[in-house]
């Protein structure tokens, strides 16, 4: 696979709730929402709890630990700019708090990932120190 340290994905811009979330990422924090009514956590940021519809929620910092819910090894990139990064491992991760995030798995053993494997978040920085999309790495015993 391509050098796992090269699996950098620039952070997009966003407004409103997305801006709060992206600011968190820039500060190495994975912020999820917590519902005061039904006690669930969710990602991605939305104005009401997707489970119960309540708007009684708070931001909380997730630990950044979780397990692989599913994954795929992408061989056909969507755009030419990503072609040199293939194959890469797109995954959905169930966070310890219960929210599910989509990300990529990086590291030497990424291509050997399995559903259920424990993973931990990392906050990559680009060449100029700019924040990128958060990624996950396998947790080795």
């Amino acid at each position, binding site marked *: 696979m391509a050098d796992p340290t090269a699996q950098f994905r620039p952070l997009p811009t966003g407004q409103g709730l997305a801006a709060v979330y992206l600011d968190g990422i820039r500060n190495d924090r994975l912020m999820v929402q917590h519902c005061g009514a039904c006690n669930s956590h969710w*990602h991605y940021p939305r104005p009401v709890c997707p489970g119960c519809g309540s708007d009684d929620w708070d931001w909380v910092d997730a630990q950044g630990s979780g397990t692989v819910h599913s994954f795929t*090894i992408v061989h056909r990139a969507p755009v030419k700019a990503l072609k040199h990064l293939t194959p890469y491992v797109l995954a959905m991760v169930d966070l310890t708090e219960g929210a599910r995030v989509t990300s990529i798995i990086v590291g030497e053993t990424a291509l050997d990932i399995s559903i259920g494997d424990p993973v931990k978040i990392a906050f990559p920085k680009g060449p100029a120190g700019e924040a990128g999309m958060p990624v996950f790495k396998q947790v080795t015993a």
Partner: protein
Amino acid sequence: MTLKNKVIISGVGDGEIGLVPDKSALDLCADAALAAIADAGLGVKDIDGLMTAYTSAPYFVFYGALAEYLGLELDTGATLTAGGGTPGVMLRQAALAVSAGVLNNVLIVAGDNRATGLGTQNVVQMLSAFGHPIYEDPYGVTIPSLYALVAQRYFSEYGLDRSHLAPIAVQSRANAALHPNAHKRDPLALDDVLNARPISEPLHLYDCCLISDGAGAFVVSRAGLAADLPHPAAWLAGVGERFTHEHLIAADNLIASGAEESARQAFAMAGLAPHDIDFAQLYDCFTITPALLAEEIGLTERGEGWSLWIGGQAGIEGRFPINTHGGMLSHCHAGAAGGLLNINETVRQLRGDQGARQVARHDVGLSHIEGGIMSNHTTAIFTREPV
């Protein structure tokens, strides 16, 4: 409100399918529309409603451009966007309007010239903006990758692998070979499917649907028109729809979608059960999709949807024919035309005049169409006679 026995499909029509470099998306859609209107024994001035799916054609209001091109005079019209599920949504909206007596003959059209008009690379790039623009797309998600996440989870849940889905691609091609206008009719062997290059593992090339040029259209009419048609009407016995999420990141469960609920509604309205269905057309953007839909609809137990394709059972002469035209894997996928041609095939099979492709039992047919990543679902049950 029940729509049972109040609405018919009075006519169906296809545009040219495959690689059609000399036709624009508008012309493909116009051809399909005129064919459907003629098939219903109607003229363009009999159409009082038009719904079209989105296209890549350069018209700001596509339905308006098509209506103007065909000389339609409409009481209502709209271009709808619900992904590949758009034809199902349009069918149900038209059925509601017709059953309420608001409209008489609603023309439904979907098509595009994605293969020759856009080209594969541009289509892939266009569809790369399919995920959530902030939380999914920056990672490099593709539509195949999102369905691959579904497939991988499905395999993990039930101890399966890609070999269990491969017969779906093989059978689709065999069915398409019996269709005179299918995009892909050359034989496809199991080894071809298994040895194909990976697109987004566990999905390989032949697990993915085609990118075609093509179009389809049908006319939704009041049941009172049935006696006057040149061809037997297809009666809408039941229809259900369910939306649960747009982006996969927001799906509660990767392998249980709104299909179960849309099917439950359709069966309840029709007063029928899964064992009453003679044949089905199940949306097949990827091989995982119809396998999952089969079990969500209740045609099999959970985890066993793939088993309907074992040993040619889903073939024309099989125990339960599925995607008798070859589906989107081998017949056609052009914009939102795939799901529409699924409905057209159900209507044609009910009529019983499809020659080598005709299924033996054709009293009750089911069409299931979905959009997004198992995001929106429409289940429609059609019958040869009112039930």
